[in-house]
């Protein structure tokens, strides 16, 4: 049981973000307090965790995340990360993190060139970082995806580095979008920034049938707490 003050998460809201309320509900359900941080803000002080939620930041007309990386908050985000702050990018958040160069690789359009909203099964492949530190390797989780551009690519050297440093955190059990090596989620080298295409916040409620998102979020909360 937690005895200290609840963790405090900031959820960055860009114009066009749309999963911010869902992320707040999910984090609240694992006892994390949340506040929204407008993209024009320049500070992330006092936060234990920053989440970039899903959606279509700035419309994503050019390319997902291509405009969002220039929002004023991104400078604060770089400082936050440099100081060891923990950042989770979900879906569009993952796309923004790759566009900003805070995670390696890029997310292309899905093989099949269609938007996909469906449940997927992912497998935990690394538990070095705080995001999955409490999950045994091989744990399978049911998590929904909801994207047009979730097809992860990177060059061979990067892929080798990701593999050898344990940065590939989640892989699809049945690849839905053509993603390289079935990659569903990765971290940076330091392990304090994670991007994933599936939406854990959509799997945190008995009434909505699946609850494995809580397994992932609880693991993160547990790591941050200890």
């Amino acid at each position, binding site marked *: 049981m937690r005895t200290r003050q609840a963790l405090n998460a900031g959820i960055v809201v860009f114009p066009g973000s749309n999963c911010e309320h869902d992320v707040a509900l999910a984090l609240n359900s694992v006892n994390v307090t949340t506040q929204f941080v407008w993209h024009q803000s320049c500070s992330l002080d006092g936060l234990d965790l920053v989440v970039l939620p899903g959606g279509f930041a700035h419309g994503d007309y050019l390319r997902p995340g291509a405009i969002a990386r220039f929002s004023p908050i991104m400078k604060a985000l770089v400082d936050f990360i440099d100081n060891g702050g923990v950042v989770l990018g979900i879906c569009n958040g993952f796309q923004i993190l790759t566009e900003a160069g805070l995670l390696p690789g890029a997310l292309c359009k899905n093989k099949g060139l*269609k938007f996909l909203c469906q449940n997927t099964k992912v497998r935990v492949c690394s538990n070095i970082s705080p995001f999955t530190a409490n999950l045994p390797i091989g744990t399978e989780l049911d998590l929904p995806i*909801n994207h047009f551009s979730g097809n992860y690519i990177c060059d061979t050297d990067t892929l080798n580095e990701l593999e050898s440093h344990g940065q590939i955190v989640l892989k699809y059990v049945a690849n839905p979008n053509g993603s390289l090596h079935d990659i569903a989620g990765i971290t940076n080298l330091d392990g304090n920034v994670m991007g994933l295409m599936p939406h854990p916040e959509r799997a945190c409620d008995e009434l909505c049938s699946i609850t494995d998102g809580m397994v992932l979020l609880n693991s993160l909360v547990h790591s941050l707490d200890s």
Partner: protein
Amino acid sequence: MDYKALGLVDDEFDSIKDILGRLPNNLELAMYGAMWSEHCSYKSSRLHLAKLPTSAPYVVVGPGDNAGIIDVGDGIGVAIRIESHNHPSALEPHQGAATGVGGIIRDIFSAGARPMALCDALAFGEIIKRDDSLDNVLNNKRQNSWLLQGVVSGISWYGNSVGVPTVGGETVFDDCYTSNPLVNVLCLGILPLKRLVRGQATGDGNLVVMLGASTGRDGIGGVSTLASSGFVDDAYTKRPSVQIGDPYEGKRLIEACLEILDKNLIVGLQDLGGGGLTSAASEAATKGGVGIDIDVTAVITREAGMEPFEIMTSESQERMLAIVPPSNFSQVEEICKRWEINLSAVGKVTAPGADASPRFRILRGKETLADIPVRSLTTQAPLLDRPSSPPSDLHFRSQQDPAILPAPTSCGEDLLKLLVGNSWIYRQYDHQLFLNTLRLPGHDSALLRLRSPDILFSKKAVAVSVDSNSLWCSLDPYQGAAMTVAESALNVSCAGAKPLALVDCLNFGNPEHEEVMWQFKEVVNGITQACLDLSLVVVGGNVSFYNETNERDIEPTPVVGTLGLIQSLEQPLCDLKQIKGDSIVLLGELVDHLGGSAWAKVIHNHRTGHLPPLDLRFHADLIRLLTDLISSGIVHYAHDVSAGGLGVALAETAILSGIGCEVGTISSHGQLFSEAPSRVLVYTDQPNKVLSAARLSNFNLGSSSPQAQVIGEVDGEFIKIGNLVNLSLSKATSAFNLSIPNALGETVC
């Protein structure tokens, strides 16, 4: 300007001269052309729509405003509206469907509600044709496939990006929709009732402010030349009348408008849809009993040199009209700035003159360009009682019943052909945003928790279903429409919800054809009767006429969207995961009657016959019994018997649950595929309780045959129905899931 090119007829031009006491100028003529179009004026339908029952204690706003509003208790309102975007989608399916979504969403937040969910009723010509040898069949199939792919991609693109989940709907295929698909979009919203706002202008001197996208040359003539006339072979020349959507602008408009309303800064809000600024301003002025002055030089235009008539009739998307007290303008401006929304005060509310006749004046600086009595554009638009007569082949249609058709050599093979699943479609839609979707698309109705960022702690839920059946309505429009309402209400109750209200989207051919007008009147009468007997009210609707191509009208297609309420999510809900080992009970009769069935149409292209009888009072009893059984936890799951009859209903439940069934009682293909109304399959581990509840309700009165019986059980990996069907579940599942992608020649990852 040629008034005929604007869609006006000689009589109407004469009326305009009488109203103004002079010749109209070109701008005025363009404004009348837009507002007196069928699309804006409902001139052929208004007279008949007045019959529909529209009031109940829980109706806060009925038809005629931006959205119907239902009071569901605890200070919470549910907004609902449906609209068609058929003709734009026929010409440019992606943008046509996308802007249909955008338009209906604006109607919902115009009322102060947060748009929470979309459902679509889509209809296309056949894509699954077995006889590809004929060139025209193949060409039609290609065109229909292109339309389906474009419409789905348009809904996906706009809906997902604007951040409103698409949680349900239906897609039907029939060759009457070749070249003229139906794209009807329903949107649900949720609001704290204290935020309710009307689309009306009030307060002499208040500012008329346009918010959102700039005004361009797109969509000019949309209502008059595109929506209010049929297609002939040169239809593609009308493509410039299709608007272009911008979901990102739409998303920011939602957020900005809701914030403005939360701060109580405006007195009225109206979206700009068909008829553009002319329609929005004149409707708002009419409802508020005031006049409006608009200065066209204050309108932010997308390009220089736009003519006043272009500015006044442009249908550029993502624009709103707000009525703002001058003292609040700077606060509105501040909110818009934060959301990067452009705004401009383009006019003022004016008091009615001494003769109490409010004026709609268009100015260019100090120069008056147009001066029109407001109500002559709106409530005083032409009202027609068009002649009507039954189709000459109506008698023939009711003869030649499908009973004459040969029995299938294999019922299982016929069943496979009737299994058309929608997963290829709804996988492309975000159907989970807001975490309210309590079951995935594919069931009888969508079930949604009523929760939004403003309303976090409600225990209520709503179910919504959209339904149509053009075959039923072509055989008997009165009964077909009543059966459509009955099915829609039953679908909602299959989720455990009590049906309360509906919206309708009435898709018809050319109202200048007497048989179309007759069909329309019969359909309105059928909906009216069904509503009265089922205690439902109509809270909004839309009429789409002129769905014709080269003089061929579509079959009459009323689409009904029904809303039902679950008072508390603490009550038991349907759960497909619990049905393993359950008994399958049929509530309603086992009958052998194939009139109006999908089996006759799809397998034999047989489109004649008479509909099975409908007893609306019995239907009301069935709905009550079913919702009681679900809320008391006796029933694990319910599925109504509709297109494809018992065969398809049993197969669909097996496919969705992943468990087969063994059913004994059904003994003929007529019983297997009949679509007689008022029948539900319920899945239960307490069949005796279901049977005794059915006996105790009024349910068995007046009938000799049993009205509730155990017909089989849930088990195994096969769908076994008597001696008729023995299909492996995996074969049925792949037929169900792959029918659409296979027809489109696509592979599924």
